[in-house]
């Protein structure tokens, strides 16, 4: 029987309806569709998809179990490598990872690996998550700083190994970017909470409202524990550095998304935190963060939502699905366009942005063609709100507060492959080590560091 060339589609909310609510966009596969999609897998001997997975999930194996209808076995395979499948099944850039290596690409769509992962995680959550066996207590204590994907994963794995883990989180909620950055319609907060619950059930304590480096120092922490993992992420927003950036109406993507997601400004005035966006919103940048901003703006009632990006569509770093959804929802893409200044009225309120057209020149260090301005092509767009989503740098609080900790040239904490820093009892991973990257890489880093910490604790008698 010939293999079906296309992925089984995932039912989705109608774009016209969904831009009026914050509910999740795709609904996920039902059992029958999941089994059919799993049957598309060729079960290649050499398993190329695994090479594309940063945490080396045995993809053909779990897909085989789905095809056989044995979802529980499939989950066991998945969970042996990832602790956040419901999250990764929604936000991983599959097309550059597992699905990008799929043999089926030669004839059509790759296997919907991401969709299958999501299906399994949702199936398991509905059924009630099994708590795995926890090793006998080792009597060792570890402090984890930051409750993002890196910290949560590291904490969960260490707890399973029998160590006592306490997480310290600066904000009042866990999840890091999963909570304050990625919007509800893409990653429902219930799902993040369920994943955090699971980690808590493994015996991990989470202390909120503790800014390590301020409320308590790393030196204080180490007096009570045997090792420390730092997963404080890449929280520092980057700016365009053009005139007018401090006008009323210009937000960093982080401020905008935090107000909306974590502080629930979309429910204002039932919730106290406000956000105001006016009628026309322009988002600068074209990564996942930018797509999240532009699509959130529509849901808050913007009549026009622009993505303004200095390169062309081929260089846009966002996941294919995000760009597709943004297009469907009516986001207007102004590509090869770069802002040059923000213009306000006499009260300092943002009114316009001046942009210049760009063209692609020679390749730069990143291998992408460098955008160069076209002389004399300046033009203005009337806007009420500007959202700057051109990237984040590692959060400087901890790197600055720990003496002698080796820091890289972007302010990141330097580590080896397994998260070891130059200080034996300090480990780090996720965005704080790599700069802004992905959930799966942060999770992978947390896992590797947990193993390295376990080794260190065994040696340290």
């Amino acid at each position, binding site marked *: 029987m010939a293999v079906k060339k296309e992925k089984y589609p995932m039912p989705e909310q109608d774009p016209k309806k969904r831009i009026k609510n914050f509910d999740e966009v795709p609904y996920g596969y039902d059992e029958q569709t999941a089994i059919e999609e799993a049957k598309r897998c060729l079960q290649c001997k050499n398993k190329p998809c695994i090479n594309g997975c940063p945490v080396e999930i045995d993809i053909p194996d779990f897909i085989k179990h789905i095809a056989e209808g044995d979802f529980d076995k499939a989950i066991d395979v998945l969970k042996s490598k990832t602790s956040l499948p419901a999250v990764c099944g929604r936000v991983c850039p599959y097309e550059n990872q597992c699905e990008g290596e799929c043999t089926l690409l030669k004839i059509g769509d790759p296997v919907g690996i991401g969709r299958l992962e999501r299906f399994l995680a949702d199936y398991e959550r509905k059924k009630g998550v099994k708590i795995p066996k926890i090793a006998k207590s080792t009597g060792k204590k570890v402090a984890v700083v930051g409750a993002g994907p890196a910290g949560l994963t590291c904490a969960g794995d260490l707890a399973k190994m029998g160590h006592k883990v306490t997480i310290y989180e600066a904000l009042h909620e866990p999840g890091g970017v999963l909570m304050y950055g990625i919007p509800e319609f893409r990653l429902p907060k219930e799902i993040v909470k369920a994943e955090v619950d699971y980690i808590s059930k493994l015996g991990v304590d989470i202390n909120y409202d503790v*800014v390590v480096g301020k*409320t*308590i120092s790393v030196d204080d922490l180490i007096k009570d524990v045997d090792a420390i993992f730092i997963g404080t992420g890449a929280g520092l927003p980057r700016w365009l550095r053009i005139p007018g950036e*401090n*006008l009323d109406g210009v*937000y960093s993507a982080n401020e905008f998304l*935090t107000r909306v997601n974590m502080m629930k400004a979309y429910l204002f005035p039932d919730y*106290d935190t406000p956000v*105001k966006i006016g009628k026309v919103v322009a988002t600068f940048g074209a990564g996942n963060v930018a797509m999240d901003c532009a699509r959130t703006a529509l849901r808050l009632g913007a009549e026009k939502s622009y993505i303004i990006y200095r390169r062309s569509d081929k260089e846009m770093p966002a996941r294919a699905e995000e760009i597709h959804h943004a297009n469907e929802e009516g986001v207007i893409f102004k590509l090869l366009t770069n802002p040059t200044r923000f213009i306000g009225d006499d009260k300092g309120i943002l009114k316009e942005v001046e942009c210049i057209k760009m063209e692609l020149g020679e390749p730069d260090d990143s291998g992408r063609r460098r955008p160069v301005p076209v002389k004399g092509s300046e033009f203005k767009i009337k806007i009420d709100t500007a959202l700057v989503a051109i990237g984040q740098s590692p959060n*400087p609080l901890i790197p600055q507060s720990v003496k002698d900790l080796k820091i890289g040239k972007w302010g990141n904490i330097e580590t080896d492959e397994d998260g070891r820093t130059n200080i034996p009892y300090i480990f780090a991973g996720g965005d704080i080590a790599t700069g802004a990257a992905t959930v799966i890489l942060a999770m992978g880093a947390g896992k590797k560091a947990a193993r390295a910490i376990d080794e260190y604790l065994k040696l340290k008698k």
Partner: protein
Amino acid sequence: MVVKAPLVAKKAQAGQFIILRIDEQGERIPLTIADYNGKKGTVTIIFMEVGKTTKQLGTLNVGDKILNFVGPLGVPSEIEKYGTVVCIGGGVGIAPLYPVIRALKQAGNNVISILGARNEKLLMLEKEIEEYSDEFHICTDDGSKGTKGFVSNVLQNLIDDGKKIDVVWAIGPVIMMKVVADLTRKYDIKTIVSLNPIMVDGTGMCGGCRVSVGNETKFACVDGPEFDGHLVDFDNLMLRNRRFICEEDEACKCAGVEI
């Protein structure tokens, strides 16, 4: 208001602030630390009831809980022996100035304090501050206590009297800090101000608190809140602090609180 927060109290220093959220629906707001006691594990905050959150805070009773209380945030004041320091507090700015005055006095400075407010009722901590001051002035806009006039008038008089002033510390409404900084600039007296922009996280993550200092963008929550008053763009700060004025009104109306 005295809040039990042992971890915060243990680390708190003059010049720092906290962020609190009263309940699940609440907004995160920053308040400067007015006093702290590491042994008792308490932190004192003093606030003016100007918006929804501070009004609600005012309704709490002894024993009530605040859902989230995080700190101490920001860089502590740079306390050293400067010589003669004039400390100027306006309105609620008097509260956070108190620990600074105490620390400056304890560091061996000659401290001249000037407290100002619209009227007598809005003055606070007069006794406590006087105790740590070598010279003590009060003024009110309406003359209900002390001399009638602004803190800047008192400062001008000190300068005119030929007092040698090494540093000025000014905490209060933005307009007061601006006027003081403009005055001291003329005489080239180093001036430190404490800024109070709108904040969200307080960890340097959102940039909502950004201020322009010497034409550089700084985050008040991690780089400040104290800055060199001669470099601060106060006009931009005033403008950014007005960002959600209409929304604040709406929040108050919905909650049935008067402003």
